[in-house]
């Protein structure tokens, strides 16, 4: 398995500490193909302008480029129409938009927000903030022995008090795929809305919001070959129509009077201020790139490379995978522990070998506490990852064992 895409990614040619770069930190952010880098630069060189408010040619071209990117995002996730797609700062921005726009205006004392212990801080802290303001409370689903969300108590937990269910489509720590379909079905029965934190799932799994059944799906461009500074919030039209905006400012209004305002139609209602225009253009180019590969192929490659990684890691003594080992139920974020070598030491040693991995709590402290691991090292993959990267990782891990005198 060679990887013909790598030539598109300029950074993969560089050396790190004199070694070939094995970039295994795509769960944190992916690298960008030249097509995306150039799309952003070309936008600035040829039609940069503010959008929507202008009657001149550049403004029109910029608006067309920006709205064109929205249409690409909508089509990529199978949305009914572009105006169900709101551009945000990223996944975190999107979750806060829902927490403040929907939660702050509708939740009441006694209402419940159902999360799982595997959520990223982005899907925990906004709900804590809104719970504090509204008097709503948080409830958590736990995990089974296979690192999957344990649904055995769901019927008891899912009652009329639950107004929001928010779950990760794929854990950024264990790689486990979230039980979205099951939660959607259960939430429907009590009329709760379902939010999917798609930061990891949308880049790695084919996603179709029309068949998914959730009410919101949120994700970040920078984790799917796109620029930093932008993400997307997809919402079901009826819910977006009735939801209040979280932020106020220009572009999101129909009228502003001194003491009150009326909002613009969706999606603009949720896009206060000058949006990340060049970033939207880059996001669109990233989607073009992924569409060209095909998301089925992206997933197939990920299963293949993850299987290879799990196999090779199994050869390393003292190494324990923190996550499911069946590739059918997981993505390509592979957390592990290596004997008593602290993950930060693992990362430092690997870095000397040119291998980039994350180490720490991965913005999932509740999960780390739940699993009773203070930290993990994590290797995570994307379309450009090759077996050679994995081999380099394994070599580095042997070096770590040697340095720490593990035998």
């Amino acid at each position, binding site marked *: 398995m060679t990887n013909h895409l790598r030539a598109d990614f300029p950074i993969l040619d560089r050396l790190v500490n004199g070694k070939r770069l094995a970039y295994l930190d795509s769960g944190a952010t992916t690298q960008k193909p030249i097509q995306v880098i150039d799309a952003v630069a070309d936008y600035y060189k040829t039609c940069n302008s503010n959008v929507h408010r202008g009657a001149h040619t550049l403004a029109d071209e910029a608006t067309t480029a920006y709205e064109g990117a929205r249409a690409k995002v909508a089509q990529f996730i199978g949305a009914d129409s572009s105006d169900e797609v709101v551009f945000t700062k990223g996944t975190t921005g999107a979750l806060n938009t829902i927490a403040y726009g929907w939660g702050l205006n509708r939740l009441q004392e006694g209402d419940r927000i159902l999360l799982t212990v595997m959520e990223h801080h982005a899907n925990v802290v906004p709900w804590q903030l809104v719970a504090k303001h509204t008097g709503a409370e948080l409830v958590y689903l736990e995990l089974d022995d296979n690192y999957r969300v344990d649904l055995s108590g769901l019927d008891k937990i899912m009652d009329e008090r639950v107004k929001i269910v928010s779950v990760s489509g794929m854990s950024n720590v264990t790689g486990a795929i979230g039980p979205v379909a099951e939660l959607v079905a259960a939430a429907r029965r009590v009329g709760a809305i379902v939010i999917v934190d798609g930061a990891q799932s949308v880049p790695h799994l084919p996603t179709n919001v029309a068949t998914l059944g959730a009410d919101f799906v949120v994700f970040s461009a920078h984790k799917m070959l796109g620029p930093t500074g932008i993400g997307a919030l997809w919402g079901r039209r009826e819910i977006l129509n009735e939801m209040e905006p979280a932020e106020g400012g220009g572009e999101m209004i129909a009228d502003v009077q001194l003491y009150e305002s009326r909002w613009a139609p969706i999606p603009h209602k949720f896009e206060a201020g000058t949006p990340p225009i060049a970033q939207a253009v880059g996001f669109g180019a990233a989607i073009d790139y992924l569409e060209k590969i095909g998301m089925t192929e992206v997933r197939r490659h990920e299963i293949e490379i993850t299987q290879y990684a799990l196999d090779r890691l199994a050869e390393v003594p003292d190494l324990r995978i923190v996550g499911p080992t069946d590739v059918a139920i997981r993505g390509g974020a592979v957390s592990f522990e290596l004997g*008593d*070598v*602290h*993950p*930060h*030491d693992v990362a*430092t*040693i690997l870095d*000397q070998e040119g291998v980039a991995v994350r*180490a*720490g*709590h991965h913005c999932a*402290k509740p999960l780390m506490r739940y699993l009773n691991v*203070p*930290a993990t090292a994590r290797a995570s993959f994307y379309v450009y990852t090759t077996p050679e990267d994995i081999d380099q990782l394994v070599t580095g891990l042997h*070096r770590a064992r040697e*340095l*720490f*005198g593990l035998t």
Partner: protein
Amino acid sequence: MALEELYREVILDHYRNPRHKGSLSHADFHAEGLNPSCGDEFSLDLAVADGVIVEVATQGQGCSISQASGSMMADIIKGKTVAEVEEISTNFKLMMAIEEGESPIDPARPGAVLGDLEALQGVRKFPVRIKCADLPWTTLADALEAAQS
């Protein structure tokens, strides 16, 4: 090679067998340190009598560098006066280039000014890890600040 200098025998020994581990039921001063970017933790109990640190207990969680640095620190400060400890702390920070100034340690001839701590010099080649080595010392400074006020 840099990695061998970083992970010296003595560092791994302190990491695996931290000295003065635990807490004091009768601590005079207590401080907790956290490195939010990596999650490393370090907590420190001191018993002080007549300006002398008579007892030390530490607890922590984190990489070999932060935990070894804490264990070595506990070792060296026990039995010293607060003034002596402050000088050690300054010397440590000079050695690690955390504070600007000439290092008290000649890298070519490691002496005994800082004892085991001198083994941490290898960290200087890994700038992002310096804050790991420093965590116990900022915690110590917090504890001593409480002692002073």
